[in-house]
């Protein structure tokens, strides 16, 4: 890659290649069909081919790859969760992310920034300590810092006590990072396609064929396709797909909005999150401030931006960074998230045999793209759910053994 840059940097004869080869005809049958061409579906396809040699695979995407939440999120990557199960799982993802540009030979602009979860109340300080202890116990770099540390580490932050919720301290997670989210989808797609995986855009799954409780095929707008196994990774539309498969999920589809400001000179290196103020903010490599908050107040299948959101968000952002008052907002958008009651995902087997699920990613699933892809590929290829995914099984609800991560959600919900 670096060689190519030197060789062709100033040459008009750069042999640019198409990212994905021309879309093939849909075959009548595949070993594995993956429904949903977001980061999760594409990563799973990549690891199926790379780690397990399973290459007769089709990824079916109703729109374009990465056009769902993968291309709408605010790209925060971290592993400072609350439960041992969650921390172990997200930690594997952070490690995969750290080597992902190399692995995919594609720059995902992985940028380690450090991540601060501000605490404005005694209760939030307590949760910070709790998380720091669980994190350290599992080898994750995470500690509680006080106002003096914050003054040094985030000089632009408003530490005044003359605000509604003065900052008392924070949970500091140095490995916290951001990445170019589309690049993650493209990188996985490009490499998967090179290994023979078919990626079909504009291909919507409209029905499932199930015989004797086992998946045998999917119906699409381009015809019927038989399959040995299938996985759904459709984020906000998880419930709609599960409905086709004949089971219910503990998932509500709720819009989540975000926005970016016009580009500013770099002043904010770390990622700043405040649960009490329901906001988070980071500065992208382009200089734009990327800002988000909690999910919309009620469920729906819609991606409309609202004034309420931006008003509420800004009221709180300005408590943290009052000098941003005159900065214009450039873009605002929403994605449909698949929210679970315990703020943990739902992964693995379903009541339908050979039909797997990757869902319940809510507002936190971008960071899990590599580990989920890798471990779901393992599940599909071997037919066994790895220990790392076991805690997140769908049946945990029936067993009343939830994995409560609400306390580690980026913002209070």
């Amino acid at each position, binding site marked *: 890659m670096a060689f190519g840059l030197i060789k062709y940097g100033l040459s008009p004869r750069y042999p640019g290649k198409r990212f994905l080869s021309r879309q093939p005809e849909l075959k009548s049958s595949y070993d594995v069909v993956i429904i949903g061409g977001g980061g999760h579906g594409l990563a799973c396809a990549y690891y199926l081919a790379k780690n397990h040699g399973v290459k007769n695979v089709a990824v079916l995407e109703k729109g374009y790859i990465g056009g769902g939440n993968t291309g709408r999120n605010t790209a925060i990557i971290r592993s400072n969760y609350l439960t041992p199960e969650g921390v172990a799982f997200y930690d594997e993802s952070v490690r995969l992310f750290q080597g992902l540009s190399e692995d995919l030979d594609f720059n995902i602009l992985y940028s380690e920034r450090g991540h601060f979860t501000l605490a404005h109340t005694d209760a939030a300080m307590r949760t910070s300590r709790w998380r720091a202890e669980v994190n350290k116990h599992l080898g994750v770099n995470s500690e509680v810092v006080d106002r003096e540390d914050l003054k040094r580490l985030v000089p632009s932050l408003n530490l005044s006590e003359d605000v509604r919720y003065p900052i008392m301290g924070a949970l500091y997670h140095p490995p916290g990072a951001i990445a170019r989210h589309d690049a993650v989808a493209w990188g996985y797609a490009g490499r998967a396609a090179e290994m023979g995986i078919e990626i079909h855009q504009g291909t919507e799954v409209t029905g499932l064929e199930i015989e004797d409780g086992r998946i045998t095929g999917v119906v699409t707008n381009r015809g019927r396709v038989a399959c040995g196994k299938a996985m759904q990774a459709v984020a906000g539309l998880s419930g709609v797909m599960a409905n086709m498969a004949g089971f219910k999920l503990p998932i509500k589809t709720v819009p989540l909005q975000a926005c970016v400001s016009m580009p500013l000179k770099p002043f904010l290196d770390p990622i700043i999150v405040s649960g009490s103020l329901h906001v988070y903010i980071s500065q992208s490599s382009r200089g734009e401030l990327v800002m988000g908050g909690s999910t919309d*107040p009620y469920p729906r299948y819609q991606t409309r931006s609202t004034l309420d959101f931006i008003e509420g968000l800004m009221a709180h952002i300005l408590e943290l960074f009052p000098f941003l008052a005159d900065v214009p907002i450039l873009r605002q958008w929403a994605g449909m998230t698949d929210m679970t009651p315990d703020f943990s995902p739902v992964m693995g087997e379903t009541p339908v045999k050979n039909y797997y699920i990757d869902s319940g990613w809510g507002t936190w699933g971008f960071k899990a793209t590599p580990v989920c892809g890798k471990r779901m590929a393992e599940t599909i290829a071997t037919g066994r759910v790895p220990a790392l995914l076991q805690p997140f099984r769908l049946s945990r*609800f*029936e067993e009343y053994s939830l994995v409560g991560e609400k306390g580690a959600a980026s913002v209070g919900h």
Partner: protein
Amino acid sequence: MKIINCPLNGPRNAQEFVHGGEFVAMPDPHRSSDAEWSSFVFLENNTAGVVREWWCHVPTAYWFIAERDTIKDEFIRTYDPSEVFRERVEFAKPPAQGS
């Protein structure tokens, strides 16, 4: 701002309301299996289309029922729960515990 028509208070800003979840019948807590009860507590129809739900107008703590389209984000009808509940919902006494 979205306006919701509260059966008690009339049209109000959406910020005055909280969403209370799907309107589903509660199974008898003393007689349902673990699976039935967990399904009631956790599982969602999460319908894309017209749904029936509980909503609460917060300043009056008033609960009502709304029919809403989750794709168009439109409220079709809101009404007082007395339209559905004519009398108090009672469950029979729990079966005796222990031996």
